[in-house]
Structures are given as C-alpha cells and as structure tokens.
C-alpha cells in the first residue's frame, strides 16, 4: 500500500516536471525543424521568462500583466537571437552553430547575472497555496496549472501548424527552404516567427513552474539540457514526440529519484539519453533516416 501511495506522488511530480521539459523540448523541435539548428540557448528562454515575471511583479506591475510582459520580453530575445546570431551565420557548419548557440546561452546568462544577481527567487502561485488531497497523495493548485497550461499550449501549437497559413508555411520551410522560397514564402520571416514561438513556449514553461521551483540566473542550463534530451528521446524534429519524450523523462526521473537517490536524479536522465543515443539514435518515435551523400 505504501508503495502505491508513493508511486502516485512520484507520478504527480513527474508529470509536473515533465510538462516543463515537454514545452522546452517542443521549442527545440520547432527551431530544429525550421532551421536545422539545435538551440542550446533554449533553457535561457525559460530562465528569462521566469525571472522577468518575478521582477516585474516585484516592481509593482499587476500579476497578469507581469506574466504577459515576461512572455513578450522572452519572445523579443528569441527573435533577436535569430536576427543577430543565427541569420548572419546561416551557412555555418553544425559544429559552428552549436558553438554559436552555446555562446548565446552563456551571453544571456551573463546578462541575467548582471541584471538580477546571484540570489534565488520564487514567484507567487497563480491561485492559492491550499494543498489538494488526491487519495493518499497531495498536490498544489500550481501543479494543475502546470499540467493544464502545458496541455493548452501544446494543443495551440498543434492547431497552429495544422490549420493556419503561417504554420503551414513554416512546415514548408522545414521540408525544403528553396522550394518554399520559390512558391513565395518569406523564409526569413518564418524563421523569425519560429524562434519567437519557441521562445514563447520557453517563457510559458518558466512562468508555470516558477512558483514550484526556485529560480536563479543559471537555472536555465539544466532545464535546457533536459528539454534537448526530451527532443532526442522523442526523435529530433518530431514536435509531438518531444512532448511525449518530455513527459516520459520527467516520470522516469522522479521515479528514479524516489527509488534510487535524489542526488543522482539528473544522472538518471542523462544515462537514459545516452542509452537511447547508443541503441536508437533516431529516438523512440522518430523514423530512422539514411544519410544522403
């Protein structure tokens, strides 16, 4: 019976954390699809979203407005990243783009350190702190917000790519940029929108989990790496795979931490990723593709 109780608690924690990984992973997949770049600065979007919201709110901006502004700030940062770092280096090799985005993530972290310092901050929960009892397990209202917010964001992104002209145009760019350009799609603009959308998802993830976990200027590093892991787990370039990968990673991590040791929590996630990379590099839901010479 005790085992079952604990398992339920791990499940709740796992899905909550996994939701954040899912959103970050989804952001990775969108940028990867649009520009063949793995954006190592993805985790910084989460940090910037959360930290901006915390500081705007502390500065007296009404709660909801602060959240909205934080998302807008992050979107602006994402678009600036595309405009000033990715676009000038569009012919660079894979290794170069990896180093550029790592550089961008260090730069953003350095800026955050200068603006917000090294202290640890938290955000007021969306609605109350009254714990909810779900059988033997407990959860906070914010856990529900995280799960709900993630579900809605994912559905909106899916709708955007399946049913809007802009979404379909971005998909066209990801299949073949030259062909997309020839049928009159503004490829540059689509890239800019992809980065903006991806930053927006990162910011939402940050704002959703900020009331549960604490944030510092370097909180984005691990979140970004976990999001990247989620994207690989689901098969790189498969947006819904990344969402599933994120949830799975969160669950495995929280169960592993509970059963083995919480100190090794992050190691568990990376061992899983190494195993996936060794045995099925195309991810759990990805199609394996041959290399074109």
């Amino acid at each position, binding site marked *: 019976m005790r085992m079952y109780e604990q398992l339920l608690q791990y499940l709740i924690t796992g899905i909550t954390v996994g939701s954040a990984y899912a959103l970050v992973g989804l952001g990775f997949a969108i940028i990867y699809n649009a520009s063949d770049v793995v954006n190592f600065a993805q985790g910084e979007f989460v940090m910037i979203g959360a930290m901006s919201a915390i500081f705007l709110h502390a500065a007296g901006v009404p709660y909801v407005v602060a959240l909205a502004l934080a998302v807008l700030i992050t979107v602006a940062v994402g678009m600036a990243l595309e405009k000033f*770092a990715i676009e000038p280096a569009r012919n660079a090799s894979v*290794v170069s783009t990896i180093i*550029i985005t790592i*550089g*961008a993530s*260090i730069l953003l972290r*350095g800026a955050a350190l200068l603006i917000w310092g090294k202290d640890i901050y938290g955000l007021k929960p969306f609605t109350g702190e009254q714990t909810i009892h779900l059988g033997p397990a407990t959860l906070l209202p914010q856990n529900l917000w995280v799960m709900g917010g993630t579900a809605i964001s994912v559905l909106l992104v899916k709708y955007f790519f399946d049913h809007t002209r802009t979404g379909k145009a971005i998909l066209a760019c990801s299949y073949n940029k030259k062909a997309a350009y020839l049928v009159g799609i503004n490829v540059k603009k689509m890239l800019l929108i992809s980065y903006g959308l991806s930053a927006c998802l990162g910011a939402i993830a940050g704002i959703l989990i900020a009331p549960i976990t604490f944030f510092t200027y370097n909180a984005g590093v691990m979140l970004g790496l976990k999001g990247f892991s989620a994207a690989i787990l689901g098969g790189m370039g498969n947006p819904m795979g990344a969402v599933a990968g994120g949830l799975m990673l969160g669950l495995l991590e929280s169960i592993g931490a509970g059963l083995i040791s919480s*100190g090794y929590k992050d190691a568990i996630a990376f061992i899983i990723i190494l195993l996936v*990379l060794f045995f099925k590099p195309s991810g759990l839901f990805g199609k394996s593709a041959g290399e074109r010479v």
Partner: protein
Amino acid sequence: MRLLGLGIFALVIAILPILFPENYYITVVGVTMFFHAILAVGLNLFMGYAGQISLGHAAFFGMGAYSSAILTTKFGWNPWLAMGAGALLVWCISYLVARPILRLKGHYLAMATLGFGIIIHIFLVQYDTLTGGPDGLSSIPELTILGWPINTDLRWYYFAAIVMLLSILFSLNLVASRHGRALQAVHGSEVAAQMMGIDTSKVKVHIFVISAVMAAITGSLFAHEQAFISPDSCSFFFSIELVTMVVLGGMASTFGAVFGAAILTYLPEFLVVFQDFKVLIFGGILMFIMIFLPEGLFVGLRKIVSYLRQGRKECLSS
C-alpha cells in the same frame, strides 16, 4: 623548418622567467596556461583535425585529477604510479564509450559527450566517501623527479612548459603523419574517406582516446600542482571553456589552440576587476568569433597577413 616555430616558442618560454623573475603572471598564471594549452592541443586533435565535437572533455580531465588525488591521499600510492593508473583508467573508459558515441554525428554527438560529462560530474559530487563530495580533496602530495621535488612556482613553470612543448611536438608530428592525413580526410567527408579505404571509425576512436588520455594526464598534473581538486574544476562550464579555446585560436591549428588557451587564461586575469562581466564577455567572444571569424583568431590573422603580402607582391609585379 617545420619545427622552427616550436623552437622559437620554447626559447621565449625559457627566457621569460629570467627577464621577469618572481612575476605572478609568468610563473603562476603561466603554469595554468600551459595546462590549458595541453588540453586545447589534445581537444583540437579531435575537434579541429577530425571535425568532431566534444562537450564533455572536462570529465577526462577530472577523472585523471581524481585518480591521482584518491590514490595518493587515500591509498598512499606513488604519484607517478597514480598518474599512470589514472591515464590507464581514462584510456579504458574512453575506449569503451568511443565506439557507440562516435557513431553519432553533429547534434547527437554533442549531446552524448555533454551527457557523459555531466554524469561523471554528478558522480564526483555525489560519491563523497571516495571523492570528498562538493568540497573535493586536499593535501595531495607533491611530485618528485628522481628525488628532486617540484615544489616551487619556477620549477612547476619549467616542468609544465616541457610537458606542453612535448604535447605540441606530438600533435605536430601526428598531424603530419599518415594517421593525421586520414583524420583530415574524415573531416572533409567521412564517406569519401571510407571509399579511399580508411577505417573511419577506427581513426576517430584512436584520436578520441589520445585526446582523452592527454586530458587525464593534465588533470593529474593539475591536482599535484594545486594540491587540491574539487568538482568545480571539471564542470560542464570547463568543457565549454576548452571548446572555446580551440575555436578561438582556430580549429585545425596546433599553435592556434595554444594561442586560444593563452588568451582564455590571461583574459579573466585582467578582467578580475569586472568579475561579474566575465560570463557575459565569454559568451560574447564565442558568438562573435564563430559568426565573423569561423576559422578563429589565429588562422584569421595569418590569412590577413598573407593576403597583405600577396597584395604587395601583385602591386610590385604590375
């Protein structure tokens, strides 16, 4: 002729402490710079020449350093024996992970090496009965060569310089060898290299193991020099710093790697006043170089010089 540059470099290094005796920037920071240079030269073999990427090289450095620290302080081993054991351990581990990791390319390779580095780092922090946890291990004994202890800054300076010069020599020779040409073929196109009869996966595994063992030996030396080691010295950020050194100097240039190591060692020393800006400047340099000078500062500067020379020749001939 090929070794002329190395000779001049060795001469300058030998003279500097005589010109500036007891200078902090020469005998103390200099040793750190030599260690960084060995690491960068090793990583450059793997990244610059073979065209791969490793975001986890600090892990090999850490394994070497911790092997030395644990074996000498907890088991009373001879430092040289401990260093050998550390190198052997890294040789085995890097050989084991090399095959599956090096099958991967690009982003996947970056992720796998990064994951490997983070796993080792977490292990070093968590397994505190052996590694001392986040506090690390201290009072690591000094090295002695034939009864002659290396216990002053100046002695460390010359000892580290010799090791670095040997590693540069090794790298220059390796690159000019048949093996080195095979590496560059792998960099150009793996498929084409295979068609030419090169066992590409074997070539990549070899170079990966070589550069990992170089990092392990440097780690051991570092542990003895500092007499202290903590997980902070082999974090993910240190791996990134090493990549930055290689990239900054210019990939596929041994002296470029040394140059990159020198800049990234001395820059933070001079930026000490701007402590909080260090991270920001680091990121900025990395992005700027990669976007505008993808071949690195050293190679870029050399190109500009040769361009100017050629320009003048053309002026004269016309």
